[in-house]
């Protein structure tokens, strides 16, 4: 398999490169783009990004492994990220997580067999007024209780 950006992504990358005085600065945006294009980042993708940006692949890999939003495996259609940090924690995020585990029948880091849900935990998402809260794909939900969780999951079915 050879990885290559779509014309649209390449256009976006060209635009991004214009934002910075050097090409390396576009690594994180390029990895975001790649993740949108390919779903997740493989070593081939890292090599490809390195080639596009004319930087050592080691530097791409350092960035890839440092930031938590980049992933090396596919996720389900809905990626549920439960906030575990202190404001959510004292408001019961553990219960949220337990409920989701039970309801989805998967553990943290797993994807449901039908490929619909992936469950992970995250650190503070900057939405503590909604605690306990979670992010599903791009959207924030909270405050959560079992009833609210049921509703949200249903709306996502």
């Amino acid at each position, binding site marked *: 398999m050879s990885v290559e950006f779509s014309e649209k992504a390449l256009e976006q990358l060209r635009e991004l490169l214009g934002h910075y005085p050097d090409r390396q600065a576009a690594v994180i945006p390029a990895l975001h783009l790649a993740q949108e294009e390919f779903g997740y980042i493989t*070593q081939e993708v890292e*090599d490809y990004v390195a080639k596009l940006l004319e930087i*050592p*692949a*080691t530097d791409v*890999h*350092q960035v890839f*492994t*440092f930031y938590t939003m980049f992933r090396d495996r596919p996720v389900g259609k809905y990626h549920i990220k439960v906030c575990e940090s202190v404001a959510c924690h004292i408001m019961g995020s553990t219960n949220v997580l337990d409920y989701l585990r039970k309801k989805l029948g998967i553990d943290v880091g797993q994807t449901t067999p039908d490929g619909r849900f992936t469950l992970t935990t995250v650190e503070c998402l900057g939405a503590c007024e909604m605690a306990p809260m979670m992010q599903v794909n791009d959207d924030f939900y909270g405050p959560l209780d079992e009833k609210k969780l049921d509703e949200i999951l249903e709306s996502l079915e």
Partner: protein
Amino acid sequence: MPTLKIDGKEVWVEPGTNVLEAAKKLGIEIPHYCYHPALKVAGSCRMCLVEIEGMPKLQISCHTKAADGMVVWTNTEKVRKARQAVLEFLLVDHPLDCPVCDQAGECYLQIYYMEHGLYKSRLRENKIKKEKAKPIGKHIILDQERCILCSRCVRFTREVTKTFELGIFNRGNRSVVDLYPGISELQNRYQGNLADICPVGALTDRNFRFQTRVWYLQQAKSICPGCSRGCNIEVDYNISREYKAGGRRIPRIRPRHNPKVNGYWMCDDGRYGYKYVDALDRILLPRRLDEGEPVELSWPAAYTMAADLLSEATKEGADKVGVLLSAKMTNEELFAARKLFSSLGVSRIGFRVEPKEPGYEDDLLIKADKNPNTKGAELLELGLGAGKSDVSALLDAAEAGEVDTVVIFNEDLSKSSEAERAEAVLPKLGRVIYVGTNWNATAAKADLVLPMATFVEQEGTFTNFEGRVQRFWKAVEPLGESRTGLSILAGLATALGLEPVSENAEEVFAELAEQVPAFFRGSATRNLVSTGNWLRARLGRR
């Protein structure tokens, strides 16, 4: 010039010098892991914290520029406690591998623990598991658990070799040093340095692993004979535990700092190229061929035979004798050889041998000329004329019947650009004498073979490609019955009834410097500074 006070002692330093180096000038070693004078400052290990008057927090001395009037304390209670804390932190996840770790004895976790640690362990938790004993290159094994993430190795591959194979991946205490997963091994020719600069046992040298404990090793200062750069090296030899390292007397060679020649580094070709020294193919006894059958000789018999062969030849005319010295020989050996053969009337004295393939060269250290002393031979005005290799000229003369006796010093012609012609011509000659260290195709067919010592078994000087004369010292005794080049030449001179030749390199150098205009008049090897600096300046002025 900033003048500052460190631990009560005044010192002045060049502007821009950091406090760690300033302290070094006073003989004060500030403990550190990530700092390396040849690499960019990382400031991350936090071991080199010192107290600076007027600053409330402890400062890292590697990133603090010495300033005029600065007052630094490197050994206060506060500093010692901070060091102890850093050590304790590093050891939290450091495995107790010391009994099986090659770094033991020169590990800076051990050294600083003995100097600054010595606390009782209060770790009740499990250590983090990471990858162990992972080969990451032809010469290097990585142990991520032992790694303290000082990043020296990563900076080396970024700043020195610019090959970028290593990175620090992940974050927090899950961070690891590793190869980029897209490559299977280190791709630079300087990997051995990684084991040197690793302050702990995370990167070890596959050549040295499990060979011997470092405390059995002694050091001799030497010069790498691997190319014309003349990297300054430390020969680590072991003569106290002969059974170690599979009987190899030299378990490893390491670069010795010389800012003018090699900095802190040496290449892998040079570092691992010394193994012929203890190889099984070393020539251990003089030997002659009797109707094609090898017969071992004592040295007196060998000298007599050599003298006879040379006398016979020169009787027919000194023109008939060709001598091929080697740019692997020392200045002293070349000088003594030139003197000896000249006094026999021999004028065909060359040394240039062209390799089959041109040597690899880069813009860091490695030179294409794989001889350590080509420049020295040139300054001694050896050689049979420009344009051609001396081997070719000798073979031309032999083919033309002008030469029928050759003396070859330590050059295997079967590895030269003239391999085929040499193979055809040499057997047809009347007399072939070979003086060398190891058996090879050329030695095998010589009428007389004299065993010569290797560079670790003698002392002398090489002149590097820039004209820098650099001295090296003896590490171990010549193997078997082999003798130094000077010793062999001295024996020959006696057997030939010629003016005696000194076996003492220092004396020969003094004479050489007296007689050869290119070398500094009146110099003696003991006066050579390790850089050979003044000598080069003098040469340049001529």
